[in-house]
């Protein structure tokens, strides 16, 4: 019994309520929200201090009955891997809130309240251990996102929100049907007690919902417009954190609870993941704008992580968790950088950009550093993650490894194209001479993310070696994550 996890969920939600009513100016509300999100990071660090990484079972848990006749309870807690994903979440959310504060979003009261509410909901998804509670948080994420994209988004935002909501609601309602049937069959909704199920229908209900969220080919139809029309920091949250809810769901629910269907459908999922990986990389290579590159690379990376998850061995699971954290940090940084570039040049189109490195050393350094990590250069943390995943999936068949390796080459191609399109070559027509280097506020947002990435590059084993307590991921998951 520990309140820490509950505090992690409720602190941002309480902060949201405070922001909604506090009699402050927009700037004051922004600083309040930034403060809350930083305290959230501090709470997470406290949780890490209290966590026993040698123990693979649920920790810092708390359970209170919610309604007893259907055996539903408020049950939260963290495993080692969820602790890392939560950490990534709170760091990225803090960066995004601070970025929103720095650019001075209008209608600040609503904006910051929604961002904080979103933080609470996402942390809830990663810590809920009761299926109904998990679903509640999973859906609750959508409420602030709908408004955040729809109000602060670009010109095509109405269509984008509609697409996004229709896709995700369809997926999550299929999941709701599956949850109800599964829970009533088991007689409890408590994830730690639910036994394995062999039903293919239930399995598909969950997989479709998570595949839409991740997203996985061919259910990624919402992705292009949503990521392009959202404000940059919301895109960062979407691709860095929200999409991870889908991958987390696969890891927490699908793989431990449906061993039979996972075994039967492994090839299908590996094929879909490979298609996402290669197709996403090719689209990223052809994308006309910087954000396009980043968003399609997200599709590609989601494919890679699913490849690791369905490799079904220690290497794959460890690599997938590491890569979830890596990609969260990388794609959030890249989307924020895209936003910073767009602010200066009022466009993200690569053919109108170029030559921004000259006279802007900070921008050049940050873009280059994040970009190089993103393309998984050896010694970077992304390289460690991808290597583990490929080594894991290689055990399923050498050809999966070949596809993954080919995609790594493609990643280098699209990332270098994007970097040189922004920084190098001739000065683009959309780049005004007066465009400033990164300001202190922007650096304060991106540099911490970059520092996290560099730290992980130095010691990727911090996550990959401490995600499942004692490094036997496969056996822990095979027991259904008790």
């Amino acid at each position: 019994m520990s309140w820490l996890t509950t505090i992690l969920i409720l602190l941002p939600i309480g902060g949201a309520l405070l922001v909604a009513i506090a009699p402050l100016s927009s700037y004051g509300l922004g600083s309040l929200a930034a403060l809350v999100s930083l305290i959230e990071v501090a709470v997470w660090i406290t949780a890490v201090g209290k966590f026993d990484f040698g123990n693979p079972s649920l920790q810092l848990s708390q359970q209170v009955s919610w309604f007893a006749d259907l055996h539903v309870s408020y049950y939260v807690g963290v495993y080692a891997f969820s602790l890392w994903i939560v950490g990534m979440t709170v760091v990225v959310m803090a960066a995004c809130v601070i970025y929103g504060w720095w650019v001075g979003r209008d209608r600040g009261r609503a904006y910051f309240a929604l961002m904080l509410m979103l933080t609470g909901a996402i942390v809830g998804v990663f810590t809920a251990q009761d299926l109904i509670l998990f679903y509640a948080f999973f859906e609750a994420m959508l409420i602030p996102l709908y408004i955040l994209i729809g109000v602060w988004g670009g010109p095509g935002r109405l269509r984008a929100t509609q697409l996004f909501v229709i896709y995700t609601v369809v997926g999550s309602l299929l999941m709701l049907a599956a949850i109800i049937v599964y829970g009533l069959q088991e007689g409890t909704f408590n994830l730690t007690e639910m036994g394995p199920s062999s039903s293919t229908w239930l399995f598909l209900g969950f997989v479709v919902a998570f595949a839409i969220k991740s997203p996985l080919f061919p259910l990624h139809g919402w992705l292009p417009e949503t990521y392009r029309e959202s404000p940059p920091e919301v895109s960062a949250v979407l691709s860095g954190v929200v999409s991870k809810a889908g991958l987390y769901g696969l890891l927490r629910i699908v793989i431990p609870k449906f061993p039979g269907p996972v075994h039967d459908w492994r090839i299908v999922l590996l094929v879909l993941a490979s298609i996402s990986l290669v197709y996403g990389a090719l689209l990223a290579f052809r994308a006309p704008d910087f954000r396009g590159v980043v968003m399609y690379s997200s599709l590609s990376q989601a494919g890679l992580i699913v490849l690791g998850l369905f490799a079904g061995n220690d290497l794959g699971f460890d690599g997938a968790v590491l890569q979830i954290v890596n990609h969260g940090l990388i794609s959030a940084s890249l989307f924020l950088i895209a936003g910073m570039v767009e602010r200066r040049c009022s466009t993200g189109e690569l053919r109108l950009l170029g030559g921004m490195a000259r006279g802007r050393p900070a921008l050049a350094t940050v873009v280059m550093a994040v970009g190089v990590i993103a393309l998984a250069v050896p010694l970077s943390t992304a390289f460690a993650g991808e290597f583990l995943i490929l080594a894991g999936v290689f055990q399923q068949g050498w050809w999966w490894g070949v596809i993954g390796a080919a995609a790594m080459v493609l990643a280098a191609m699209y990332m270098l194209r994007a970097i040189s399109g922004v920084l190098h070559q001739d000065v683009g027509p959309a780049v005004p001479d007066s465009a400033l280097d990164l300001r202190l506020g922007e650096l304060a947002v991106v540099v911490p993310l970059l520092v996290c990435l560099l730290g992980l590059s130095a010691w990727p084993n911090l996550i990959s070696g401490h995600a499942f307590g004692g490094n036997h991921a496969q056996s822990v998951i095979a027991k259904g994550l008790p």
Partner: protein
Amino acid sequence: MIATPHVDWLALSPSLELLGAAGLLLMVAVFTSGRTRKLCAAAVGFGGFAGAFALAIVVGARTPDGAAIMSDSIYRDRYAALAQLLVAACGAIAVLISYGEQWRDEHLAEYYALLAAAGAGMIFFVQAANLMTLFLGLEWFSIALYVMTAIDIDLIGSLEAGLKYLIVGAVGSATLLFGSALVYGITGELSFNQIAAAGHAHDAMLVVGLAMIIVGLAFKASAAPFHMWTPDVYQGAPTPVTSFMSSATKIAALAVTYRLLLTAFPADEHLWRWAIAAIACTSLAWGNIAALVQKNVKRILAYSSVSQAGFMLIAIAAANSLGVRAMLFYLIPYSAMSLGAFAVVAARERELGAPVTLDNLSGFGWERPLLGISMWVFMLGMLGFPLTGGFIAKFYVFSAAYEAGWWWLIVVGVIATMISAYFYLGIVRSMYLRDAAELQLAPAGGSPPREVVLQAGVLICVVVTVVSFFAVQPLIDVCRAAASSLPI
């Protein structure tokens, strides 16, 4: 000398108290005028409903074991008490919504008198224990509602709506009456218990009678395909009247339907379960699809109420104790959301002086933060999103369907919910995602009326909607106590 049954005044008290309030309101109409009348009428109306609410609680608390009383004419049990309590609460909030409406002075107190009379009728209706009291209650509240629908002679469409409601409603009542006559004809019994005991379950005449009774009640619950009056009447009636109709009438009709089917026709369960499931699916399909193309917000909400009836009918089709609990629980957030949504529409209507459409809702969420957020909550609740009781309600309904072995009803419900996302979120989209600059219609001038009373009503509805998500256990305990009165 004919022996008269013992009269249990306490069991009748909620309905009689409200009837007394209606009489008092007619006195208010005679003895006061102007501002005093407005204040007094609303106060007496609210007091009447609050009194009925309190008396229903007393009856419920003092009736651990329910039974049919007074020659099997009415029930005194917790099931009826819970339904009465909900109806009374809806009436009280409807008074709060009505307060700011620009009624003609000469009809003001009569309006509240009719509202109280309709509430009294529903409260009597939900405790009906035989076919005679059932029909009496039904006509009692229906006639009051017909008049209320047509009461605002300045409102275009109000009279038309009243007439439509009268004609279609009369067809519904007549069908119910005919069905009752058939059932009485074959069994020779009027009271629900005796009909079941008479044992003519497989007689064709009884089955036809049962079908006609279901149709008659489905008219009142506005379940498709018996919902034809709903969009026109909801749109044409003054908005406070619509708010009361959409919540209280549904509570009364659905509560009585469940009781009647379980008590009087248990042997025909295999038949009526299918009939109810068919009506539920039709309502879900029709209500949600028709709502997609509507532009008038009241019409959207009318079709939404058809689809919500479909969800509650799923609980009836389940015909198990979880189903009773699910339906009773569903009614709590549903009536709050429905009342609240129409209250917000009423506020916008008063501000614009024109019918509310999706277009002229633009920017409303930013102009009136409290009402905007409330509407947002109601729409998410109707959609069945978490953080509102609507989610728990749908969860219970689907669980009941699964427990009854009809998982395909879950699939139908889930598909219906997917479709409904478009129009429920469409209202949110109008309120928040478009700017006031896109407004088609300039507000009537000056700052909007403050409407503290209406806002208080909306706030109560929001609290109920949200609290029913968190405090599920106490509410479910109440519903379980009520459900134990039914023979299941």
